[in-house]
Structures are given as C-alpha cells and as structure tokens.
C-alpha cells in the first residue's frame, strides 16, 4: 500500500504542472526531455541496478527505435504505429540474439562488449546514409495518431510521454517486488547461489536485457516523432554514459533513484545556463560532490536518512510512553 501512495504522489507531480501551466517551457520542452530520460534511466536500471549487469550501450536501442520509426515511415511510407511495433519487434530479436553471448561476460568485459555494441550501432547510423541520411539525419516524419487523436502539439506530446513514463515506472516497481525481480537481485547478489536455488541465470539476464532494450526502443520511436528529426549524435556513446550517470547518481537498484537521477541530469543544464561559460564546470563539480558524499546515490541516501529519522522518532515515542 505504501508503495502505491508514493507512486500516486509521483504521478500527481507530473500531471498537476501540465494542467496548471500547459504552455510553460519547463512543461512542454524540459518536461518531455525529463520523461524521455526517466524511461531510459528506469529501463537501464532494470539491467544495471536490479540484475547488476552494466551496459555502456543503452543509447543504441533508443537509437534503433528512433531510426526504425524514421526510416520505415519516411522511406517506406509505413503507418507510424506499425513502424513502431516493427521497430520494437526487431530490437527484441536483436537484443535476444545478442544477450546470450554478451551476458556471459562479467564486469569490465561486459562493459567493453556493450560499449562496442553502442559504437557499432552509432557507426551504422552515420555510415548507412542511403537508409539513415548519414550524419545529417532525417526529418519529415508523419504525425503519430493515438486512439484517433493526432499528437500534433507540445502539450499533447507531454501527455503522451508522461503516460508512457508513468507506465514504465509502474512496470519497474512491479518487477522489483516479484519472482522475476528477486531472481534478478539474486543474480546480482550471487550468481552461483541463484543457480543452486533453481534460477536459470542466463535466461533471467537475457529476458531483462530484452525488456530493457524494448522499452528504450519504444521511447526512441516516440522521440523521433516528437522531434520530427533524428540524427546519429542523439544516440552516441556520450548519451549512453549519461544514462549510466543518471542511474548511479540517483541510486543503483532503486526505480525512484533512476527517476531522480534522470530529473537532475535533465534539469541541471537548464538551470546552469545562467553561468554561461562555467556551466559544464559547475555541472561536473555538482556530480562529483554528490558521488563523493553520497556514493550510494542521492535518492537512496535520502531514503535511508528518512528511515533513520522515523525509527528514531518511533523509539523516542516508545521511550516517552514507557
């Protein structure tokens, strides 16, 4: 029950601003970016935080989603919905095939392999210019229509992203407290012990890899339609690293941690614009300070502090009555 209260508060905090200020820049532009980053960070956290499998190539799946929507709708005139589903299906197949060999690797080797995957996909976007438009990217995507409603202005896009984001967060929270979530955490804790309890660790890792990739892919499709433009630079190595930073900054293994990380990394650049030339410097300093003093992540640290505070108060109350 407590978990649902937290989720409802979170949902309200995304809905209320949009109702009150439908034209505000921070809702229509920054809000969409935040929602995009939240879904990506939450999906990456399923793999990194829950299952403990690092990925430095998550942006590749985001990019594959965006490009499959762009290419299929613009070059082949396919319906946006069908293009989106086709993209998700393709990414599911690709990620499933890749997952078995890649996830056999551990630690640094897994980091290397996923890094390579991200770079290969990025090179493909740049080089296959007949298909993807090369470094210039491509635009002119048709309008996406959801249940007969054309998504053709900023606030409609905000709602689309907000709903998709809220669903993803709910999925992630649900998985955490389920048989699958525990199996993932068991893989994280001790793979050998997990196997001895009957967990098919290779299968569990592969399933979450596919799930996480497909979530990122659908986000990519929405992103392509919303921006009406795709280019390789949105899906490069640096964006993958940024996603990892979001997950770690908020707190590895916590869904809301990924949410908080995504919000901070999306908002900070907006807020730091006033410092002009020093923006990047201050941005880096803030990230470093958080990680030095709260290595378990901002959200997780705050959660622990809150728990300690409540426990102390309860004890205080118990002492007072006895």
């Amino acid at each position: 029950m407590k978990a649902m209260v937290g989720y409802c508060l979170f949902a309200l905090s995304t809905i209320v601003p949009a109702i009150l200020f439908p034209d505000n820049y921070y809702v229509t532009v920054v809000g969409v970016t935040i929602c995009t980053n939240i879904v990506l960070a939450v999906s990456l956290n399923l793999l990194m935080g829950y299952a403990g499998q690092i990925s430095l190539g998550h942006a590749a799946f985001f990019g594959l989603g965006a490009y499959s929507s762009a290419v299929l709708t613009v070059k082949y005139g396919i319906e946006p919905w069908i293009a989106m589903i086709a993209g998700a299906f393709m990414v599911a197949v690709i990620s499933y095939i890749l997952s078995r060999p890649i996830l056999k690797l551990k630690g640094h080797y897994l980091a290397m392999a996923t890094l390579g995957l991200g770079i290969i996909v990025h090179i493909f976007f740049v080089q296959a210019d007949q298909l993807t438009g090369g470094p210039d990217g491509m635009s002119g995507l048709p309008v996406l229509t959801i249940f007969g409603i054309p998504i053709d202005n900023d606030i409609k896009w905000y709602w689309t992203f907000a709903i998709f984001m809220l669903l993803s967060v709910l999925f992630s929270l649900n998985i955490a407290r389920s048989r699958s979530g525990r199996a993932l955490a068991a893989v994280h804790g001790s793979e050998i012990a997990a196997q001895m309890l009957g967990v098919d660790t290779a299968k569990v890792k592969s399933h979450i890899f596919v799930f996480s990739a497909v979530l990122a892919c659908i986000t990519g499709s929405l992103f392509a339609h919303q921006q009406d433009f795709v280019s390789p630079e949105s899906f490069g190595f640096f964006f993958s690293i940024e996603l990892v930073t979001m997950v770690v900054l908020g707190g590895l293994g916590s869904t809301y941690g990924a949410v908080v990380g995504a919000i901070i990394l999306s908002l900070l650049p907006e807020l730091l614009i006033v410092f002009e030339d020093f923006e990047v410097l201050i941005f880096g300093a803030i990230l470093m300070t958080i990680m030095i003093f709260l290595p378990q992540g901002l959200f997780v640290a705050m959660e622990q502090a809150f728990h300690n505070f409540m426990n102390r108060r309860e004890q205080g109350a118990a002492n007072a009555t006895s």
Partner: protein
Amino acid sequence: MQLLEVRDLEKKFGGLKAISDLNFSVTERIIFSVIGPNGAGKTTLFNLLTNIYKPSGGSIRFLGREITSLPPYKIAKMGITRTFQNLQVFLNMTALENVMVGCHLHSSSGLIAAALRLPSVTREEKKVREMARQALEFCNLQDIAHMPASALPYGTLKRLEIARALAAKPRLLLMDEPAAGLNDTETMELCNLISRICESGITIILVEHNMSLVMEISHHVLVLNYGELLAQGSPYEIQHNSEVIAAYLGED
C-alpha cells in the same frame, strides 16, 4: 533405490587429481558426512555433485537419473540444493527476500506478468511469502525477517542460508562446513537444526571439520584423503579405523 549414486568419479585440475575413482552411494533420509584433512577434495566433491565443476570422468545418478552433465539450475530442479562454505547470501536483500528466492522453483510467474502485476502474481506472492515465513520459522529466524541481510551477524547468515535452501524443498541438501566460525552455543543449535531437517525427510550430505558434531549426528561417514576414498562406515567404525587415525594424526 539409492538416492544418490556416484560411480568412478574423477576430477583433474591440470595434472592434479583432486578426486579419483570415487564410488559411494547415499540412501534416503540419513545424514551422510564427508570428512577428511584440508585439501582432501570435499568441496570439490560438492562442486562436482552440483556440476559447478565438470567431472573429468565417472557418473553421478540422482533418483536413478543421470545428472552428470545437467547445468546447476536443473540439478536444483531435480531436488538438490546446497549451502556454501564461504557464505553466498544475497546481501542486497532482506532476510525474507533471500528465503523467497529459495521458493523460485515453487512459483512460476514470468517477467511480463510481473510488470503488469496480474492477479495471479499477487496470489503467488502471498503463497511464496507464507512458504518463506515457514522456512524462516523452522530455522528460528522469524524475528529478523525484515532486516537487510547485510546487517546480520555471521552466525545468523549461516542459518539464513540454510533457511533459503529449505525453502526450495529439496530431496537432498548439501551443507558445506555449516559449523565453521560458529561458537559453541551456535554449534549446538545447528546440530539440533540439522537433525530436525533430516527428520523432516530431507537427506543431508555434510562436509564438516567439527568432529564431535559429525560423530554425534551422522548416520554414515565417508573419509576422503588426497581425493580418494579412505574409509566409510558408521561413526563408531570410522573412529576406530586405524587408517583414518593415521591420516588425521600422522603415522608413527
């Protein structure tokens, strides 16, 4: 029928024979202890039985079925689970969640159902929680159910690992040095716990250095030395076997 039959088991690490020509069988509902000096191959034997190491030769049959080449998770499915010499508790979970992972084989919901939290998932969660509670209670751990495992003392973690293994409802439980690092009181409790597990119908293979514990609770003892079977029999026979005494104390 024998529960477990090991025939001509062999394991080489390069030129070193860690286990050679090992033959033994385990009947159901007994405490079967494996003892031997350090480096005799006891943990290697456990790793072979659970196929964490691939045997170099020989066969292992469980309930009449060949399990020599099954992956560990399938061996677990057949009804064999184990505890570890160096603890393998999931430190990223609470005690209860650890034991709930133990119920993995007795639940079935998948990733998509979990994400959507279908009614079947909620029902299963309730069932699993109850099963885990029972296993915790059996090991007298109900009071620490919601503590994070990382906050628990060593002796409690050892019992938690046993509770987790029991939640899997195995036919055969392999215990690798469960008494290592425990004080006298904790060892007494453990002794009692192992006997109760056996009474509940689970066969136990025990690797242990604490001789008084082994001699007190075992029905059958097997002595390994340099990877070979030195002797086997009842605790009384082993205690009076001159070869065993020589291996432990050195010949004069």
